[in-house]
């Protein structure tokens, strides 16, 4: 897959996606979650308190099997604390957390067997070769010595590092280290991957490579639970999102439902060569229009933003209303309600 200008991917407006369609083309292939009730990660009233600071309060996380779940929230919202509890590194102050049906408190070994965890730092031994690094962790996961060489080759193949097998780990680039870490989390073939900020600190190309890898892993049947504060990442690959703020879940569910619930109206951007007032007049006769806003002109062309509710038929009616009057429309496109808007609406900026 070639992406000439990956930066465009960071601003998923209608136009940008049209110019770099590669990732959105991948999206329809995403696995569909079969059963929303089959939860592989579940917390019930999970709480964590550090002294007086309430890091997490009554968090009810629900991640269905097979989902790519984006756990979004501002820094300090409690994302890492939640992940540390789920990965058995920290005890909750209250509530329960289950992975594959095992309690993180009472059955940590079973939980560790079912998860692959990647923290928000690399965690690599600098004085090791790439294959030794994977061999070490495979051994830590009790994989028999005879199976390890084949497994290591498969993992390196998957993350596209086979050619660096005998290199020292500290010679790898950040993106390669991150991929190596991802390979490590897969050593014991876990059902769930828990990834803390997998794309942070990476350059745009490396970030896209990680994203592709996550989609690949989801197709292999893994449930992926990852945190991020980069909404573009979440927007493009997630099937589910959970928005956390100040230790509380403010919204959670399949991404489509979330968009509809939080952004019930749709937005259309129309570019004209002229006759603005006539265009507004024509549009006002179409049913379901909530408002029309002038946008700053681009290359001398007039742009307006139309907010409306309803089906695609409304858009067709709007286009007809404009063209029947001979108004020079040069661009007519729906702006996908991006997650940023959903996020802003959901969080109300309590923390940030």
């Amino acid at each position, binding site marked *: 897959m070639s992406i000439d200008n990956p930066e465009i991917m960071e601003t998923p407006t209608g136009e940008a996606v049209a110019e770099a369609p590669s990732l959105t083309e991948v999206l329809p292939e995403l696995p569909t979650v079969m059963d929303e009730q089959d939860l592989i990660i579940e917390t019930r009233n999970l709480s964590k308190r550090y002294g007086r600071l309430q890091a997490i309060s009554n968090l009810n996380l629900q991640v269905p099997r097979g989902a790519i779940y984006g756990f979004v929230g501002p820094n300090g919202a409690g994302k890492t604390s939640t992940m540390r509890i789920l990965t058995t590194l920290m005890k909750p102050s209250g509530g329960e957390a289950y992975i594959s049906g095992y309690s993180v408190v009472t059955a940590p070994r079973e939980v560790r067997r079912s998860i692959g965890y990647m923290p928000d730092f690399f965690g690599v031994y600098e*004085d090791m070769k790439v294959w030794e690094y994977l061999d070490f962790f495979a051994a830590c996961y009790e994989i028999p010595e005879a199976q390890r060489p084949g497994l290591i080759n498969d993992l390196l193949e998957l993350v596209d590092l086979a050619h660096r097998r005998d290199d020292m780990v500290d010679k790898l680039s950040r993106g390669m280290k991150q991929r190596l870490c991802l390979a490590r989390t897969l050593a014991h073939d876990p059902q769930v991957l828990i990834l803390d900020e997998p794309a942070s600190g990476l350059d745009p190309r490396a970030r896209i490579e990680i994203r592709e890898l996550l989609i690949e892993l989801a197709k292999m049947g893994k449930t992926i639970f990852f945190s991020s504060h980069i909404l573009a990442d979440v927007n493009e690959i997630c099937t589910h999102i959970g928005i956390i703020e100040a230790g509380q879940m403010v919204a959670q569910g399949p991404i489509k439902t979330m968009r509809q619930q939080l952004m019930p109206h749709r937005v259309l951007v129309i570019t004209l060569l002229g006759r603005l007032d006539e265009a507004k007049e024509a549009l006002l006769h179409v049913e379901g229009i909530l408002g029309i806003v002038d946008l700053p002109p681009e290359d001398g062309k007039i742009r307006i933003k139309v907010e409306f509710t309803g089906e695609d038929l409304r858009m067709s009616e709007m286009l007809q209303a404009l063209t029947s009057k001979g108004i020079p429309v040069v661009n007519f496109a729906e702006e996908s309600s991006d997650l940023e808007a959903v996020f802003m609406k959901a969080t109300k900026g309590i923390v940030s």
Partner: protein
Amino acid sequence: METPANRSRISLNPLRPLLRNPVALKELRGRMRGPRAFVVLTCYLIVVGGFTTLLYIAGTAATYNTTGEVDGGTLGRVLFGSVVAIELFLVTFITPAFTAGSISGEHESQTYDLLRTTLLPERQLVFGKLFSALAYVFLLLLAAIPLQSIAFLFGGVDVEEIVISLLVLLATAIFLGNIGVYYSAMTHRTLRANIMTYVTILAVILVTTAGAVIALAIVEGLDPSTSSSGSEWVLLVARGIFVCLNPLTTLLSTQQYLVNQQTLFTFKYTFTDGTTTTLPSPWIAFTIFYLLLSVAVFFATTRHLKRIEG
């Protein structure tokens, strides 16, 4: 070239089961890679060998007996004792340096959390770290055996003495290694773990040496006419404890009993009232005590690591 395929072949190496411990394997690979391991070994042998040469020169000058010949037995014992003392000194400094960074280093390289989310048992982590560090210390000790054996050329030293000195040195290294790993597990900073380890070792050395000297002074100052054998017993045991807690005094008194009484495992003590009793030689008490203490420290470390951040 080593490939994963031929590594998995059945091996006759008796250490093979130990290398099943992933931590031990990883640490040994890392430790023996590059020039560092060989540089440390070479420097160690230069220091021990240099001192031995100096002592030989000084010793031949100082041990002429009345007939004008070199007293081989004395020179042999002086050389042997000195090599062991230097080894003891180096082991005391090197072992903590190898172990105090073992667990805290995992925190510093941000790999500790990764290890904790694997299925690796805490005891394997501690054992692997300890084994790999001690394996290298053992290598240093074994490498110096030829230098110890120079004493054989002059006589005055038996093979048993070399074995006992090696046992005491090994027990010392095992204990110090455990202390190093313990502090390394207790703190997340290698520097702090190093300081705490060295302070503890210094305290043990100072307290035991001072205690042994004081107890000895009191015993020698006893007046046979006024002292009871009961109070002498108390002093004897007190001195014994201090002597047996310190590797240097343990080795010195063991050798003293060996030379004077020709016994390896026991020695006779004569009370001021003329009665005698037989006691185990200090090296036995030393080795058993420190090995047991090492096991206790090992379990304390493992227990600490098992705790989940609350």
